[in-house]
């Protein structure tokens, strides 16, 4: 937005908008039931409210998929130090808060407010992706350092994920040592100051990596890869390669998937396609994807369909609902195609097909013919 000259967005406080319901009673009853479903699910009802998204650090580490030292390993020896469990412990000691809603009325409330060692507010919304990509991916094992990076990004208006992957390619280029938290903070400061290196970094991971001569640049369609190494979580890897969004894990993350093992080759294209449809559908509804975990129980899909009827009228079945997602994906793909993307862009970085990721020793071995079968949706 800054590049378009947008300075501010001003909202006039005149109360919430009047929402027109086709059948408000039906909507409200179904909504209550759906919320009960969210709270009954072990992830959205237990783990997320208690420990936030940072709970994923130890889990993804155990899967061997935690980006470490610019995606050169999937296991970080100090994962425990930057884990959600340790974060929660620190919160207790310093007066920070877990279980915070990122919007009013959220029934999950998985966000947080993080205090420094003096008990003063340091940052908020301190989430898994930020912690992993500025933490293990940079070899950094100190939550306070990572929280400071988060704070600086928030203050200046930098995407924390892209910042983390950019710092890591700079480390690979020798601009700092992996694990040097102080140097990492210095690099972020350079971005804010606008030094020559800072301006290079400010153009993102592809630009910085290319300029600095780094061969291992973790991006798809220019978007830096999220904190799940696709070699050890192949369903998510298919999503990175084929989603119109680029390497976006929220477009279809296979971490909960039970029907395939994370490193097997078979079945991942179907897993990713189903997830991409589900996520795009939820994007249409304006609902947080964490509120979708409970739809593994079909009763909750039923409540969702009742909410659609209550809000918009008409008959809703799962087909009609998920067609929203399918149409969205078709439209996005069409846009990308007109913008010049081709099938060649539906691929992971070259090094991930070749370099075995410790400790699983896995490479990404799903080829272009198979990837072409993912999200096979065309505009009518």
């Amino acid at each position, binding site marked *: 937005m800054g590049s378009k000259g947008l300075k501010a967005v001003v909202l006039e406080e005149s109360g919430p908008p009047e929402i027109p319901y086709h059948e408000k009673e039906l909507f409200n009853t179904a909504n209550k039931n759906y919320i009960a479903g969210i709270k009954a699910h*072990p*992830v*959205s009802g237990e*783990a997320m409210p208690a*420990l936030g998204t940072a709970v994923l650090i130890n889990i993804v580490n155990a899967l061997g998929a935690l980006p470490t030292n610019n995606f050169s390993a999937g296991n970080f020896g100090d994962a425990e130090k930057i884990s959600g469990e340790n974060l929660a412990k620190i919160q207790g000691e310093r007066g920070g808060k877990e279980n915070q809603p990122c919007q009013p009325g959220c029934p999950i409330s998985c966000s947080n407010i993080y205090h420094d060692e003096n008990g003063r507010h340091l940052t908020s919304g301190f989430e898994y992706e930020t912690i992993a990509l500025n933490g293990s991916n940079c070899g950094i094992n100190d939550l306070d350092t990572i929280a400071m990076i988060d704070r600086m990004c928030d203050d200046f208006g930098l995407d924390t994920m892209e910042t983390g992957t950019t710092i890591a390619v700079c480390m690979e280029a020798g601009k700092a040592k992996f694990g040097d938290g102080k140097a990492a903070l210095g690099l972020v400061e350079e971005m804010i100051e606008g030094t020559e290196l800072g301006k290079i970094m400010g153009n993102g991971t592809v630009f910085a990596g290319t300029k600095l001569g780094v061969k291992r640049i973790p991006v798809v369609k220019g978007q830096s890869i999220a904190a799940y190494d696709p070699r050890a979580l192949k369903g998510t890897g298919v999503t990175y390669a084929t989603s119109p969004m680029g390497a976006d894990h929220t477009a279809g993350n296979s*971490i909960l998937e039970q029907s395939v093992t994370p490193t097997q080759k078979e079945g991942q294209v179907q897993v990713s396609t189903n997830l991409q449809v589900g996520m795009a559908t939820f994007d249409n509804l304006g609902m947080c994807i964490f509120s979708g975990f409970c739809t593994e129980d079909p009763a909750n899909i039923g409540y969702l369909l009742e909410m659609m009827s209550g809000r918009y009228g008409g008959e809703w079945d799962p087909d009609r609902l998920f067609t929203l997602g399918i149409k969205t994906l078709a439209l996005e793909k069409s846009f990308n195609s007109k913008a010049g993307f081709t099938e060649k862009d539906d691929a992971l970085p070259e090094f991930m097909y070749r370099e075995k990721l410790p400790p699983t020793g896995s490479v990404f071995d799903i080829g272009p013919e198979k990837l072409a079968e993912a999200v096979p949706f065309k505009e009518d």
Partner: protein
Amino acid sequence: MDVNVKLYSVFRLEYPDYDAEKGLRVNIEEESTILDLLIALGIEQQRVAMVNLNGEITQDKSVVLKEGDLVQVFPFFGGG
């Protein structure tokens, strides 16, 4: 026999004095399975999404444990 157990996420919160570095040292009978261990720990097996046994992921709770095994126990997760 003794096995080493590490608990994660909400399971850890259910053990107030849990030591994150050491985990738990649990004494169980020879030939115990992962399921037997979970019963000994008081963790309902349906709540367990994944076990990492000596560095390898398994969902098979009938696996027989050996002396000194490292068993990491995870509840359900999703993300994010």
